[in-house]
């Protein structure tokens, strides 16, 4: 018998159409024929025909308002069975600081489950503890049910956990301070006692530089207390750093002793930061550990255009004017942009555009044993650092 074979492309198109139609039909059939949450109902052995339990609640969210850190509270939610079959309730998962206490009211069962007859109701008590450092609080407790339309119901507890004191910012951080110029940092300390707190003492505890810093604290005006809801007192802390801070890491604690509701306590605000030189290099290609610019191998056919920034701060920043004195390899071109202040002007930014033109000579300055580093030497105009040398790791190839 002779059979005429169909064209392969026709087969593919027909297969795609057939498959697509099959898939859509399957999806539609699944969606319409399968009750909602079939997997859950099947897993729970829930019946979907005949008399059914029906769970109703008035509310599933309780706002407890405010609770102190370490304090606790509880609330009862009512669950009613408006169906015509027993409603079985089981304790489900809870958020980390929530616990579900026993069920109470109509029905039978042990502490972890409850069966509510048709027309009956029960209550479930949710307890919580105010943990952590304070702030908005929201946690859940879940009850599993045999109501096929509501196999689980989540009760949510919300409110505010109020600490005894709070600092804003919680850590005083000063990145990139200048060793040659004074600086200042501020923080606000709020208390939440029943009455306004009294300031006893405020000091900086820091092994290496405490003598270069003065700390003062003043009561905040009432309007400033609005920044911390519920605060009954607030103090503005000011730290003044003199010039001459040692280069490197800053680490200390601002300790403020307060009397709150008759009890004395010490609020400790960590202080951390860095003190760096007045001229620093910043950029995507800047390798901070190696203290070099890494450009890799650049094809002069493709060229290069990348940007670095020299940041100037401290007493001499306004005198900084960069001029290119020397560049190795010779094929690397450096263009200097005019200086621009950043923000309040405590920092001046000067852009350097690095490029490799098509006619650049080849070179290898890849910072290996066989190929020494290149460099960009800049005259700066800075009174203490008249010249800045930036190592460059680059190779210029065809």
């Amino acid at each position: 018998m002779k059979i005429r074979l169909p064209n392969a492309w026709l087969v593919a198109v027909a297969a795609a159409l057939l498959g697509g139609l099959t898939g859509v039909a399957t999806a539609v059939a699944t969606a319409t024929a399968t009750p909602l949450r079939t997997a859950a109902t099947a897993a729970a052995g829930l019946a979907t025909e005949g008399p059914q339990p029906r769970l109703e609640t008035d509310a599933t969210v309780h706002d407890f308002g405010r609770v102190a850190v370490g304090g606790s509270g509880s609330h009862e939610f009512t669950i009613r069975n408006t169906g015509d079959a027993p409603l079985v309730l089981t304790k489900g998962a809870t958020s980390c600081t929530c616990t579900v206490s026993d069920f109470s009211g109509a029905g039978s069962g042990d502490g972890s489950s409850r069966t509510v007859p048709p027309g009956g109701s029960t209550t479930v008590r949710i307890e919580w503890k105010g943990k952590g450092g304070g702030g908005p609080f929201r946690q859940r407790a879940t009850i599993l049910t045999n109501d096929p339309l509501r196999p689980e119901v989540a009760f949510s507890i919300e409110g505010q956990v109020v600490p005894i004191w709070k600092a804003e910012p919680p850590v005083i951080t000063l990145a990139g301070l200048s060793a040659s110029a004074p600086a200042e940092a501020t923080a606000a300390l709020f208390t939440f006692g029943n009455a306004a707190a009294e300031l006893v003492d405020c000091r900086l505890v820091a092994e290496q530089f405490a003598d270069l810093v003065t700390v003062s604290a003043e009561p905040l005006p009432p309007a400033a207390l609005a920044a911390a809801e519920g605060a009954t007192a607030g103090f503005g802390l000011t730290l003044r750093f003199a010039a001459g801070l040692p280069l490197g890491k800053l680490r200390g604690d601002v300790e403020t002793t307060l009397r709150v509701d008759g009890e004395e306590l010490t609020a400790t605000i960590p202080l951390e930061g860095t003190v760096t030189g007045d001229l620093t290099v910043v950029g995507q290609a800047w390798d901070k550990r190696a203290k070099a610019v890494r450009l890799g191998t650049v094809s002069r056919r493709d060229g290069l255009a990348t940007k670095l920034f020299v940041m100037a701060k401290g007493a001499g920043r306004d005198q900084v004017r960069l001029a290119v004195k020397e560049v190795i390899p010779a094929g690397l071109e450096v263009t200097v942009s005019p200086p621009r202040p950043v923000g309040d002007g405590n920092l001046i930014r000067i852009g350097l555009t690095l490029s490799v033109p098509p006619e650049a000579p080849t070179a290898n300055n890849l910072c290996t044993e066989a190929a020494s580093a290149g460099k960009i030497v800049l005259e700066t105009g800075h009174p203490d650092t008249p010249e800045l040398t930036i190592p460059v790791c680059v190779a210029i190839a065809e």
Partner: protein
Amino acid sequence: MHPAKTTHCPGLPRQPLAPRRVDAVAAGRLTMRLAALLVFTAISASAGSAATPDHGVGVSDEVVTEFQQRNGRLFENWGVPRAVLAITGELDGYIEPCGCTGKENQKGGLSRRQNFLDAMRTAGWPVVAVDLGSQVKRFGRQAEVKYQSIADGLRQMGYSGIGFGPADLRLPAEELVAAVASVGTEPTPFLSANVGLLGLDANITPRFRVVEIGGLRVGITAVLGDGKADGIRNDAIEIAPAESALAKVAGLLQQGNCDHQVLLSWATPEETRSLAAAYPQFDIVVTAGGADEPPAQLPELPSGGRLVELGHKGMYAVAVGFFPGSDQPIRSQRVPLDARWGEAREMIKLLASYQRQLESLGLEGLGLSAMRHPTGRRFAGSAACSDCHDYAYEVWEGSSHAYALTTLEEQDPRRDGDPECLSCHVVGWAPQRFEPFEGGFLSMAKTPHLAHNGCENCHGPAAAHAAVERGDVRATQAERDRLREELVLTLDTPEGKQRAVNNCLECHDLDNSPQFDFDEYWPSVDHSEDDEE
């Protein structure tokens, strides 16, 4: 016999093709074509009934079901959205969950986040991912390395918009720029309307972005609230007032013919609501400063837009699905990043790289220097206690505390070079400052006797006491008694018990041991002297 090859000769009338005979070759071709038909059918059928992206690939049904029961089912009644906005943020340095409660019992982490995004993409959902900011919480070299790692991870996951949180902006400018700036021709996903690294005019990051996804145009911008900007002291960062900066960007976004506009607002909910009221064009507004968990439903703003809270520590993501033309054009789903998502290999590699960097930097490279213990005393190591306190030592040896460091070594990737982990898994560190005390653990090579969470972490440094008891050092009876008394902890008085509880809470804190209750946990480590035989 080969089938005749028919050609058409110019000038001659076309002849009908002669039917080809069936032979072995043709039968083979028929078989292959039928097989192709079946394969195409299967693939097309799969695409036609794509699975809901509610779990990670390779996760067992048992685990999926368990976490659906624990934390809820996802995307019920959604169907396939035109596009979905996946929103994350406030990671606060929790690059992955860990803690003595067990990873499977905790939520969050970049690894699960990647699998969540991949599940939606695999299901054929067009996804645009955005992040509010606050990748880190701390300051110092480890935070810098972590920020770079997280930024790399977010790029790998294909994020389209990432804002800045206050803690991010406390990092040194050179670290931020290195992590955030465009790489080659690939634009940076970081953006902000009012935060400019090295100045707003340096244009390290754009002020906004418009993304086309699923045939929809989605405009994205971010702001840092004025209340949060006040606490940042970083001269290399320019921060403009939020509302005036947003005014400029809002106008540009309006010209972008966007179907949806997203505002990532790192501000208090109150300030965010105020910005949303001033610029009602934003129909999805993400805020910081909410509770630990996001609400189940997105509250509606007076403008008709939706307010999104994300919770803390990156434990949750929020998915907003767009269904234009339907009776519910916007749907939302709070997504717990729990064990149902499994672990993504790419993120595990990234985490391993992060841990290797920490290890290679070492404590000195991370800028960690030992600080004086508040008591001024030095450490002896738990074995020194066993000479006299054999019962207590035996109880300790049988507890999890005695192999705390081993649990870090056995992690994948291992964490025994990570100060944020070491601080509670060895002797002689300040647990909440992640730094060693003088004489505390340095490494297994240098201080093996201080491995694991030992006696002195609760009782205090005991080197002087041990030396006196061994007779290595002569002391008066009064001195001997004083050294003994300094190390005693009692549960017999409320003050004593509170002191003991506070010791435990240094490590069993909300982050790592959220279910901790002293009275429940104490029996497993009870080594009261009265029980000693």
